[in-house]
């Protein structure tokens, strides 16, 4: 099929197999290897991307389903040299250890802060329930999202694209 899609702000037209998994399309065809595959069956959140602003699992999505839509991966967050505030906060608080889970957490956190600029720690925990991290014990991840929220509120920065 002929796919028309916007990925990280860039409009693309490609001939693709409609049944290709979105994660494979993003990683293999477009080189966005920030999208990680942990489990392949919906249980770890490592493959999270935003489609039209909503977090979805790219391992359980096929490209024909995203025809005409806008996809955002972790690679699309930074503006030039400037990391997105959520990325910056993960780096600073130690929310990143091995880093495998990080893009998934960052994407779901970006969605959260877009919808709720001032979440409680409890709300943050609930929102990231579908993401698994084997290294950090989650506290630093919650710290990171809290810090990002605070900065984004005070700086009035805009999330996403």
């Amino acid at each position, binding site marked *: 099929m002929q796919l028309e899609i916007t990925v990280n702000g860039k409009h693309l037209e490609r001939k693709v197999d409609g049944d290709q998994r979105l994660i494979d399309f993003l990683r293999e065809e477009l080189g966005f290897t920030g999208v990680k595959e942990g489990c392949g069956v919906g249980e770890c959140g490592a493959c999270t991307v935003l489609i039209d602003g909503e977090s979805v699992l790219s391992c359980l999505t096929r490209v024909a*389903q995203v025809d005409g839509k806008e996809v955002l991966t972790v690679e699309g967050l930074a503006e030039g040299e400037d990391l997105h505030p959520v990325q910056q906060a993960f780096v600073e608080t130690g929310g990143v250890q091995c880093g495998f889970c990080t893009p998934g957490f960052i994407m779901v956190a970006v969605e959260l802060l877009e919808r709720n600029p001032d979440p409680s720690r409890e709300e943050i925990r609930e929102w990231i329930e579908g993401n698994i991290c084997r290294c950090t014990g989650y506290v630093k991840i919650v710290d990171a999202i809290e810090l990002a929220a605070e900065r984004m509120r005070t700086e009035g920065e805009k999330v996403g694209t």
Partner: protein
Amino acid sequence: MAFELLVPEDEEALFSLMEEKDYRLLAGGTDLYVQMEKDLLSPDRVIDITEVMAEPKIEEKKEKISILATATFQEIAESLLINRYFPVLAQSALAVGATQLRNMATIGGNICNASPSADSLIALYLLNPELVLKSSSRERQIALEDFITGPGETELFRGEYLKSLEISKISEDFSHYFEKVGRRNALDISVCTMGYILKEEDGIIEELRLAYGAVAPTVIRATSVEEYLEGKRLNQENVAEAKKLVKSEISPISDIRGSAEYREKVAARLVEKIGNNTDSSQ
């Protein structure tokens, strides 16, 4: 394995694609793709139905609320109409833990997959929706309890799809409750789920509807408990009797989440939640 994935834009195109032999309908894909990944299914053709239904997903119609099959759990959890009229349904939608899954998973998929531990089914068994099924030649309505016939089994005919569910509004005097014991993931079931709606007058139960999940081949209504408790007070003696009755209603199995005995204990213990928490949505 490769398959053909088609995304029809209107109902007519959908029906004509369904004339082919081996197809499966797709909504959020959170059950279907997992089942395909685990080689439990391998359709040649998968038909995405989400573009066919672009109307408002949740709508108030006089005495009823109409919900399109493709409404996601996130949309249901956030809907003002659902929170106002059917808090238990909003609570069950939120019980699907992961944000990403709530964004993807639809209520129609939850119904048609007919898992004994499908969270929304607890709420729906309490609310008795009529399901609207459509094929190229006709539209019919069927009660949810008649539609689901076993684990993963429904009365959906070839060439038909689930379009919407219509739920009659209920009195705002009901208190609503939903609880899930034990997380679930892709293919497992939870330990036990329970939900009820309850109307009390001066400490006497006027109406109780009680549903259980993960402890029988389908979600069930514990009707003997409902009948026993109606007209009574929730004192120790009555609760003890109700716990016995629950055990006679269920037929749990053992799996990695819990043994049959454990499930039975949990199901009985959950009876204590009736009335204690008059509105868990607060």
